[in-house]
């Protein structure tokens, strides 16, 4: 994939941030609004897709830091499972919501009846959403990069030229 024109790259650079911020919004409000870890992570990964289209695969790879993605993926999954183990370690049950209604982090008690949504509630669920969000962002980004490596130009070694082109262009 060749980097696209300067106009496209500039627009992508400014819009990309909005995509990422919106993805983070969907993840951290997962316990209050529609969405959650998976959906938000997928939204953020579309930001990576935007970078790949605008800057070409190699440019996006440098920008995102691809070698960090597997670590990110693993860290997200570990967050999830360690939070699940937390309940068992406290002697209650696996997946027990040990932070809910205890005060502190995500521990506010919810009032009965209609309320506008209290962000600091729901215990481990928002934290698990964040773990899933990290995992999905890294996983889908890796899939996108794998698709990029599968394109004909990369396989035939022609894509290295794009890299040079980009260097002179910038």
């Amino acid at each position: 994939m060749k980097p696209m024109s300067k106009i496209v790259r500039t627009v992508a650079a400014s819009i990309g941030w909005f995509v990422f911020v919106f993805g983070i919004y969907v993840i951290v409000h997962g316990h209050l609004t529609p969405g959650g870890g998976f959906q938000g992570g997928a939204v953020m990964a579309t930001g990576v897709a935007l970078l790949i289209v605008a800057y070409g695969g190699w440019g996006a790879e440098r920008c995102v830091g691809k070698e960090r993605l597997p670590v990110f993926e693993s860290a997200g999954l570990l967050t999830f499972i360690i939070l699940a183990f937390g309940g068992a370690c406290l002697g209650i049950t696996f997946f027990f919501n040990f932070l809910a209604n205890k005060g502190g982090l995500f521990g506010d008690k919810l009032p009965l009846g209609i309320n506008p949504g209290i962000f600091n509630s729901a215990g481990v669920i928002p934290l698990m959403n964040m773990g899933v969000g990290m995992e999905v962002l890294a996983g889908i980004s890796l899939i996108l990069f794998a698709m990029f490596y599968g394109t004909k130009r990369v396989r035939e070694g022609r894509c290295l030229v794009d890299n040079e082109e980009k260097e002179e262009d910038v």
Partner: protein
Amino acid sequence: MSWTEHAPILIIAAPLLVSFAIPLLEKIDYRVRNAAAVLSLAFSVWMVLIVLHKIWGSGPVVYVFGAKSAFLPLPSGFKFPVRIMLEIDNMSAFMALSGSIAAMVGVIYSWAFVREEEGGLGKYYSLFLLMAVGMLGMELTGDAFNFFVFLEIASIASFGLIAYRREDPASIEASFKYMIVSTIGAIFVLVAIGFLYGRYDALNMAYIAKHMRIGIVERIAFVLLMVSLAMKAGAVPMHMWVSDAYGRAPAAVTATLVSVSQASLYGLFRVMFSMFGVTMNNHFGGWMLIIFGLLSMFIGVTMAIVQKDIKRLMAYHAISQTGYMLLGVGVGLAVLDNPVALRSYGLAAMTGGIFHIMNHAMYKGLLFLTAGAIFYRLRTFNLNEMGGLARKMKYTTIYFIIGAAAIAGLPPFNGFASKLMIYESVYKFNPLLSVVAMVVSILTLASFVKVFHSAFLGPEISKTRDVREVPKSMVIGMGIMAVICILFGLFPGMVVKYLAGPAAVSLANQTGYISSVIGGGM
């Protein structure tokens, strides 16, 4: 309360945790990664034994996720189970024992079998553990939707593992074929569970079983579940993926994949006995299992005889042996509503069929591992390019003899014990079925004599001149399975008394399964 209270979930959670941690552990050292994978599955085996001990003491174990107490299926005054739970009776624990041992052996064997320079080993071990998690989850869960989730985990992990040797286009093809077939099957399962959810507003298998009223929706769900799970178990006429997938996956994966298919077989039995049971027409269900079983036995073995590829040959035998389990348990299902017949031969047939599940996981796993050992040294599966290996690979030869004798049903190996139980009890139900089973057993023996002769006997050929014995981890892995084959063959009475017999009784006892979750109260 001691920590063993959490043993049921630790069976699944320990390999899951290590599977997620493996990409990080890999950064330390490859030995740390491999040891963590082996230890997590050994831990699972230990936990299964603890749970089994508990079940012998006090009946089925229930573990409720996220509740105030793990043993409270109906928390806070609910009239129906709302939470996800594991429900483990003798049958589930038996399957989990067989599956976790097979997975542990697979990982031990992989240590030397999959070489570092092949690359992607972190992903290999992650997927391997995820496949084990999916398999164990299917066997332990008491929730229909969770069953589907674990089915998908096991399937998706195995797609990746089958295609691990990417340089061989046939393995990509095998993985793709399995992916298509298995995804369609999984969608059938999902639709069937959706139908049941729509009718009963619940996903707990025991709750659905308790309120089962047979109507058109239930019939559709029954047929969809039966067909798709029989397909995943590899029964003829839905067997076309088995020979490719088993034949092309790395041998360590194939040995575990046998157990993963058996988890689907367990799902099939669980659905037919515990969810539908005698409410559905059990003669129809039983005869369907028997017909699947007969077709699998006969077509599997006749296809196997003509093969030249050693792993494809064994894969067709795997289909054929699945037929024995379907036959044995199918006879039990067909007489489920007749207490006299059930006591006189039905339970014995089921015990034989269930005993055969674990025997099959062990000896077929062992055979696939020996095929992998041959491939490790010769880089070929073609029987025509082998010869005289008995001179060079003495452990592999002995293990192959044990595996081949066990699959052919020769005493004193484990296959003999379970096959004899099936012959005797099925003979009382219908003599013809028993005759077919015996003929198939003889053909199996013939086929393995052929393999033994062409691979191990005879003079050494130019290709096998420099062959040595395989590395230690592979010898140990095969050794564990061989020891189990011999022990089960020498003491079949103990196994039937403590493992297979109680498993058959708990499978036939639908009310026991229901009451361990819902209690007698409702």
